[in-house]
């Protein structure tokens, strides 16, 4: 089996998910200059809601694909509502407060959501039912499952739709204008508060999809999963240049590949001293590296303009 190719495939799956979550961070940062640290928890809620819907409907004997679709149709609105509430009650009152205040509020919301989730779903790991039949394709000795193909394709499609929404529609135009200068956008008649709310809601919809994908691909969901996932996606957003939409997509994919390849080769590199369960260190090495050497990220020219 070709390890390199295999890790590229795994990296693309992981990277697609990071990218979807990173978009949520980056869109909010682009408009508010705020790191929404509760975003990882929104993904977690999405995954757990999807899990509950699927296990509840499993006995009906519905085809699993339909189950997943229904799960998404419930999880997405739940996450969107949650994001709306977070913005409205945890961030908006602090819009004009010093930068540190909303950040602390974000961490508070994050802890609150984790604990609420623990009360609702318990402390145990929940395993996701299989959504797609276990078909695997062979490419030059590497395996790619149907689920992985669908994950990558769906993430790519979603991101293409988002890019189109932002670049081509009047809503996207309003979002970009608001990101560049909220005060002037408002003077042009753009309802800035509504645009901010919408940005949170769109990010949450992506988060719900990402949550379902995590559950399906790694077949676990639990109340604490959002923390690490959120940090990784945040790293991806910083890597791409926070506030930059294309950067988040690129940073997500890149981080997934780095982590995956790192995990595949770390044992060889350290002579067996560190195993693949150390894969998390790569994300944070990347984060430190970017912050030290290129704080603006790969595509982030805007950081200097903002200052």
């Amino acid at each position: 089996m070709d390890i390199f190719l295999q890790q590229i495939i795994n990296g693309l799956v992981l990277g697609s998910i990071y990218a979807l979550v990173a978009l949520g961070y980056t869109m909010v940062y682009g408009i508010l200059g705020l790191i929404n640290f509760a975003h990882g928890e929104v993904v977690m809620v999405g995954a757990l809601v999807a899990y509950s819907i699927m296990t509840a409907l499993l006995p009906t004997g519905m085809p699993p694909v339909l189950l997943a679709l229904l799960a998404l149709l419930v999880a997405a609105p739940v996450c969107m509502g949650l994001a709306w509430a977070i913005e409205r009650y945890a961030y908006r009152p602090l819009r004009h407060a010093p930068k540190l205040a909303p950040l602390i509020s974000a961490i508070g919301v994050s802890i609150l959501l984790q604990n609420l989730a623990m009360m609702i779903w318990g402390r145990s790991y929940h395993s996701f039912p299989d959504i797609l039949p276990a078909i695997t394709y062979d490419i030059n000795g590497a395996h790619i499952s149907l689920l992985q193909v669908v994950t990558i394709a769906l993430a790519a499609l979603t991101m293409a739709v988002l890019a189109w929404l932002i670049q081509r529609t009047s809503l996207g135009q309003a979002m970009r204008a608001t990101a560049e200068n909220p005060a002037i956008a408002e003077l042009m008649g753009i309802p800035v508060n509504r645009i901010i709310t919408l940005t949170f809601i769109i990010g949450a919809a992506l988060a719900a999809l990402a949550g379902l994908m995590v559950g399906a691909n790694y077949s676990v969901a639990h109340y604490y999963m959002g923390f690490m996932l959120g940090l990784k996606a945040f790293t991806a957003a910083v890597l791409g240049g926070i506030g930059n939409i294309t950067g988040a997509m690129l940073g997500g994919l890149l981080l997934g590949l780095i982590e995956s390849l790192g995990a595949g080769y770390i044992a060889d590199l350290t002579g067996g001293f560190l195993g693949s369960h150390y894969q998390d260190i790569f994300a944070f090495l990347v984060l430190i590296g970017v912050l030290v050497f290129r704080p603006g990220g790969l595509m982030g020219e805007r950081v200097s303009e903002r200052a």
Partner: protein
Amino acid sequence: MTTQPLLLVSHVCKAFGGVQALKDVSITLKRGEIYGLIGPNGAGKTTLFNCLTGLYVPDSGQFVFDDKPLVCNAPDKTVRQGIARTFQNIRLFANMTALENVMVGRHARLRSNVLSDILRTPFNRREEQATKDQALQLMRYVGIAHRAHDLAKHLSYGDQRRLEVARALATHPKLLCLDEPAAGMNANETAGLRQLIETIRADGISVLLIEHDVQLVMGLCDRVAVLDYGELICEDIPAVVQQHPRVIEAYLGSGAHA
């Protein structure tokens, strides 16, 4: 031309800490008028603009525009009521194209919503095409159509000023407020600007103009108000204003008219 007032500013006060930026200012702007607002630096001209366009909340006093009171502190509503403005220091969306900047200005008049945006209803498509056409037309109107697809930050200074005017016009205003539009322009550009302002008025839009270029103001405006230290010292036609002792004093110092 009717003489019914378009904008009534009555007894507006605004203080920043101990500084009284506007003291009981009342002015009246008639429909179809080009109205100049002048005064030395720090006289309160821009503060009045900011109160009028909803950026600041005045401490007291009120604005009546087109027979309706203006809602304070809601710039997007002010735009919808028909007041648009440009800025002393240009504030475009630098990383969007010139055309997009103007299209954003149309936002106040759009009827599409998010749902129709996503679903691409025929109505939405038509509206978007119309928005684009109108934006292009406005860019021709101010004379920068050839730069439509360049990023705003790549336009020359004079063109950026014109783009700001086009963006403001896109909101379909009854009153256009220009904050020092000729600042930093050469004589040629200023002449072009003057022509543009006259065309805009001829097309039925009233203009409120803050300007330091006294020649431009006196030559262009129907009436002029002079602010000094937040107080209105005079409001009349240019010929009268130029002779007013307090105006001469404010501009040249108290010894000048002795």
